[in-house]
């Protein structure tokens, strides 16, 4: 069976959930091999984790030459790995950065590229959600090695033991790939809440919060949710851009999305319309967000959310 390369999503060796989703998907196409860009010292610990989801091999690519530069070195390393291992497909978690890696890799390998898949079936047929979630598209790469970026929450991770054989891969990074330098990095402070794109529940606030996100955050915490925001709330400086849901922010596809004081503009919908269950609190009964909801409350979020938070706490005892 051919290998399928899966690029591991991690922060400092801490493997993130989309990796396991991708390994699960990879098994439908071939035998998953995980690719770890990071510190070689962390390779064994990472391999222990990914082998539980079926990784047969774990390629460890020392990122000392890579992490100081934007995107191009990663694409080069993957090209070299692909030329060596002739994989049946290459899967990457869909982030802006990985999409760019995938784009460059596609040119290098002369391969077709599919971005933002929400499902990949046997034979490499992908499903994408397009036009702000109004259409789904089935597509397939027809030339070269299929390169597919897959959105978080596209599969339920399934455990299955793989060999998890660690193999160091020495990539040669050219000087042209080192021309966009990362001069400084400032890690974002953790909020202690679930990661927006991975969370099972997202509670968002918009312009209707009037800048007071306490009711939104309080309710989110009561049900263990991540917090999101509309662009209006971000543009007003109420929330950092990293929390923005929508076309130019994050795409989320949680089990439950609760929109508070958000009108439901097409660009916002683009980032949340594939959520399984949608709930909204908005004081305007005509707000377009109500066209999407499974359940809606016409009311003021500043009274509805704190009261709901209390009720959740009562139930939980």
């Amino acid at each position: 069976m051919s290998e399928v390369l899966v690029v591991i999503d991690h922060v400092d060796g801490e493997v993130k959930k989309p990796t396991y989703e991708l390994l699960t998907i990879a098994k439908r196409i071939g035998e998953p091999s995980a690719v770890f860009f990071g510190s070689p010292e962390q390779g064994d610990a990472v391999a222990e984790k990914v082998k539980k989801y079926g990784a047969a091999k774990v390629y460890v690519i020392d990122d000392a030459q890579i992490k100081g530069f934007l995107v191009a070195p990663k694409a080069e390393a993957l090209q070299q790995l692909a030329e060596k291992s002739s994989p049946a497909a290459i899967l990457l978690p869909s982030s802006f950065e990985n999409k760019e890696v995938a784009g460059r890799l596609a040119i290098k390998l002369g391969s077709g590229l599919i971005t933002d898949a929400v499902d990949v079936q046997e034979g490499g047929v992908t499903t994408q959600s397009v036009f702000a979630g109004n259409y789904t598209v089935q597509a397939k790469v027809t030339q070269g090695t299929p390169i597919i970026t897959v959105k978080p929450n596209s599969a339920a991770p399934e455990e299955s033991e793989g060999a998890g054989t660690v193999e160091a891969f020495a990539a040669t990074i050219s000087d042209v790939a080192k021309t966009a330098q990362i001069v400084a990095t400032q890690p974002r402070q953790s909020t202690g809440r679930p990661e927006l794109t991975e969370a099972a529940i997202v509670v968002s606030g918009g312009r209707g919060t009037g800048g007071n996100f306490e009711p939104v955050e309080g309710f989110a915490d009561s049900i263990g949710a991540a917090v999101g925001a509309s662009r209006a709330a971000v543009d007003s400086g109420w929330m950092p851009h990293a929390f923005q849901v929508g076309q130019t922010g994050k795409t989320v596809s949680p089990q439950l999305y609760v929109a508070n004081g958000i009108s439901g503009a097409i660009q916002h919908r683009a980032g949340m319309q594939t959520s399984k269950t949608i709930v909204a609190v908005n004081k305007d009964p005509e707000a377009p967000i109500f066209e999407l909801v499974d359940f809606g409350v016409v009311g003021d979020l500043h009274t509805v959310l704190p009261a709901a938070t209390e009720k959740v706490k009562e139930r939980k005892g």
Partner: protein
Amino acid sequence: MNIVVCVKYVPDATADRKFEDDFTVDRVGVDGLLSELDEYAVEQALQFREKREGEEITVTALTVGPEKAVDAVRKSLQMGADSGVHVLDDAIAGSDYIATSLVLAKAIEKIKADAGVDLVICGMASTDASGSVVPAMLAERLGMPQVTLASVIESQGDQVRIKRDNEGSTEVIGATLPIVLSVTDQSGEARYPSFKGIMAAKKKPLETYSLADLGVDSGEVGLAVAWSQVEDTTERPPRTAGEIVTDEDGSGAGALVDFLASKKFI
């Protein structure tokens, strides 16, 4: 210094976007316009010119697309770009990212051969395909540093520094011109064309190139050779109308929590 801004003509996101029978995006039946996200790219090009007083800087707006796509270039000229280039060729229809980036790169190389190119500016994504991959592909093809998803842009001499939001961090990226830059909608509101700008645009040079002008073989692009093929498109069934309650004397919170509990979210 010469700046090329890549601007895409896209179907209006607020209109009823759909697909043709061959699964390509309907670019004729739906009103189109300059992609809103590329307005930010035009804006940054103009600001680049304005901030660097005393230098001679020209901004060329470049589009690849059907006949109507020239509107995207016209709007850019109205905003303040100096000249426009439209790559128009029937063979391009249905091109995917790989072919589109090839045609754009060849057009940029032609502009470069004629007048030099120091900076290529793109939007962060096209509002129809929203791949966010073309700028990276252009950097790959042109062999220029890739400086993408900028929210703040600073330059001095041939040095450019940007700020960008990454998944878990904020980064500062530095590179030396010539570069491919892409900018986000955080980079600053795009200007509206002024009446004067609209009048002036009519007299600005606007060239049309065919694939032959760029030395691209028509067999390298288009739907038939796309590196990926769409097999089917399905309109999402409308969501079944949900239950809407009106909050009266605190009833809303109770109903909301009951609903969430019934779905096992609590």
